[in-house]
């Protein structure tokens, strides 16, 4: 459907243009260029930061933090989530704790993380891990618990062993839930890294925001904000493409059945 696709692209581009126009309008007519620097000024500020590589250094360090926290968080959450979904006793024991702890957002954990781990990398890894862990955990547990009983029984009477049922039926059945949880967790990681870096870091995009704020450099603040938007968007798209490439057969049937 090239036509539908062209239309989507056109609308997307249109939406961006409108956003920039609105931005320009708010900056020059409604407020003033100091509070909201106009798009062109922001790009002029961004150029030297791109040329010197300054912005990339901050992006790289933030991405590394998100990466480490997200990957370890997912790994731990999937393992525990599968156990919780499969073993009722463990679920009943741990569920109350999880239900309480998951309301502690990464931001709420910043003060204690700084005391535990200092302002080095570990505290950031921990905070992203924390945020990712509970989101993926809850989704994985739900996915494993909802693997259709009929599907498992059908496999069982074909002669599948408990391990085969688990690996070949339950896990693939849970895959859409796990992937959805990971996607939400990734978006949340990109959000939580910023407060973590604002409050407790000497590098990263959050630090750039904080530093620019202290120096009242609103145009640099806008560069940082724009960077966060683009990063989140790009990584979500990459994630979706990767899922489409590798897991589409586990994902698509949801819409079909």
């Amino acid at each position, binding site marked *: 459907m090239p036509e539908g696709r062209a239309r989507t692209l056109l609308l997307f581009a249109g939406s961006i243009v409108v956003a920039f126009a609105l931005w320009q309008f708010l900056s020059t007519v409604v407020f003033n260029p100091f509070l909201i620097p106009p798009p062109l000024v922001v790009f002029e500020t961004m150029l030297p930061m791109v040329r010197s590589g300054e912005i990339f250094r901050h992006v790289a360090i933030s991405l590394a933090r998100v990466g480490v926290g997200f990957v370890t968080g997912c790994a731990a959450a999937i393992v525990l989530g599968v156990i919780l979904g499969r073993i009722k006793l463990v679920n009943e024991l741990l569920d109350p704790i999880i239900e309480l702890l998951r309301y502690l957002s990464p931001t709420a954990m910043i003060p204690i993380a700084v005391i535990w781990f200092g302002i080095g990398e570990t505290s950031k890894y921990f905070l992203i891990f924390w945020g990712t862990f509970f989101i993926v955990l809850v989704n994985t547990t739900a996915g494993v618990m909802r693997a259709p009983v009929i599907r498992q029984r059908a496999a069982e*009477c074909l002669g599948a062993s408990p391990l*085969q049922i688990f690996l070949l039926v339950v896990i693939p059945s849970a895959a859409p839930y796990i992937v959805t949880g990971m996607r939400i967790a990734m978006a949340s990681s990109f959000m939580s890294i910023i407060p973590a870096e604002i409050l407790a870091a000497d590098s990263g995009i959050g630090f750039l925001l904080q530093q620019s704020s202290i120096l009242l450099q609103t145009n640099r603040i806008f560069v940082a904000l724009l960077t966060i938007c683009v990063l989140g968007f790009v990584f979500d798209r990459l994630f979706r493409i990767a899922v489409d490439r590798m897991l589409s057969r586990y994902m698509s*049937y949801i819409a079909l059945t």
Partner: protein
Amino acid sequence: MRNVSKVVGTAAERYVALDGIDLQDAEGEFVCLLGPSGCGKSTLLNILAGFDQASAGDVQFEGAPVRGAGKDRVMFFQDAGAALLPWLSAEENVRFALRVRKLPKAQWPAIIDKYLAMVDLAEHRHKFPAQLSGGMRQRLQIARALAVEPKVLLMDEPFGALDALTRRRMHGFLLDIWQRTGKTIVFVTHDIAEAVTLADRICVMSVGPGSRIVEVVRVELPRPRDPADAGAGRIFKQVETLLEAA
């Protein structure tokens, strides 16, 4: 004939769901369990499959007590969409059965071809369950079940969700496969006409809780049977009266 299944009483949630069920099933026979909704037909079938346990009495298969599900008794579900693996194509679903059956890989292609051809799905082998019609999914489920070469097929209202025409076709289809493979079939239904069309024996069950097999009706009519036929009509009437009295 070494194929004995016997269930005596199962109490679920403090009421007696099935009470004193005696059932012997001969090898190669087509048996229908017929009864109103909620009479415990599916419970009984689950016990035969080994998914549920009888609370009293014993269930034996070929002289050995039934413990857990086994590939000699394959259950066949009404919701084929749920029973099949939606992320595998038709061919891969059959392959899954062979994989868990631990057959040498070299034999797989021939067996897959054989059973897909038997259920007329050879040309749809690369389609996913969601791309198949309801009747095709049921046929795929049959192929997958046959691929593990069970002795008994346990069918739980397998065609209940199909339209009348597809259902009739599936009946002819199932009988054909049954005659060719000589499997024992235990078929659960609440549809009298379906039971009369298919079964050698119809076990009429009473309304639950505490339902029993009130009578076993032998159907000794030649196949294919026409429900509008006089002989079939008589049995239909007989079964209907039994059900109403039960």
